[in-house]
């Protein structure tokens, strides 16, 4: 890896990592709520 590649790598990596981390967090927060449990027959 030459100096130019390394500089490019060091600039791009944090930006990409932040975008993915933000996307992952949003996907986690916006997950649909779990299905409500189906009501069972009331005991007689």
């Amino acid at each position, binding site marked *: 890896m030459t100096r130019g590649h390394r*500089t490019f790598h060091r600039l791009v990596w944090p930006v990409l990592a932040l975008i993915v981390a933000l996307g*992952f967090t949003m996907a986690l927060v916006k*997950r649909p709520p779990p299905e409500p449990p189906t009501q069972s027959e009331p005991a007689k």
Partner: protein
Amino acid sequence: MSAGFSAVQWNRRKLIYDGILIAGVVLFIGTFMTLGALRNPPADMPAWINLRIKAFGTCAFVMLTIVLTIGPLARLSPRFLPLLYNRRHFGVLTFLVALVHAYSVVDWFAVQGATADLMNEMVASPGYGKFIGFPIKALGLFGLTVLFLLAATSHDFWLAFLTPRIWKTLHMALYVAYGVLVMHVALGLMQENRRIFIPIFLGGSFALVALLHIAAAWREREAAQEHDRWLVVGAPDSIPEKTARIVTAPDGERIAVFRDGNQIGALTNLCAHQNGPLGEGCIVNGLVTCPWHGYQYRLEDGCAPPPFTEKLATYRVRLRDGVIEVDPNALPPGTKAAIHIGPA
């Protein structure tokens, strides 16, 4: 100067590496499918294919995560260098596993006669304007395309044809593919399945890759700042006989410091042939030998032996208080700079 050339340089270490790799993949997928079938027995063909999709998809993601951790691990500790040695085969196998995953998705639609639904989802989905609901198969296809490009250009022919600079830049796209594939899982499986294991596995894998890269960069920066001019390499004995220790100059340039008996010399870590990692090679017949294609150089002055004409930049070396130090300012290629330190 090359010690010899062959199209694919197979050797025992590479065969062992590939053998372990293939056995690991077979074991992972076999275990995943067996446990999945025992836990939730598939009722029909689509259910079986669904299990196959998950097994190969998970395996490909794990492999991709490992591929991306090898580089920083090797920079943090030389113990991981054997993993770096044949990383390209690891990458190609990752693509093949991902390809089976993608084929299984098509198969899942095909066995139900719903191939048109898959096409609609890919090209005309209203989800393209949404975040949750974005067509994850398009993300997967993008990731697979990048993996294909990298696998197809992994051979040394492409390295020479594209030039090392362009080849390396192209292969940096693996990081983009990884980011897209994290989102492929986050917007796909993680939305369908509420089990806590999935976000922990996905977020943990991503965090592992990110933290290892940060740790490796931090380590190199610290090492470079330790001494304002001469870089400390260590005691002569800390450089394994006929191999090198790699130190990083403040400007980020890597320097390979070799020991051959009582002779110690420092060369740039970049081979003059294709920028191969010279410091990961060793000394063969008194000549520093690049691990990629066997190009060879004299340790004392960085020159390839006659009739070859390649020359490497060398660095001044000194022994101070029993410690080898190297001047991070490169000397003109071919300058004599190695020292003799007495009986080693």
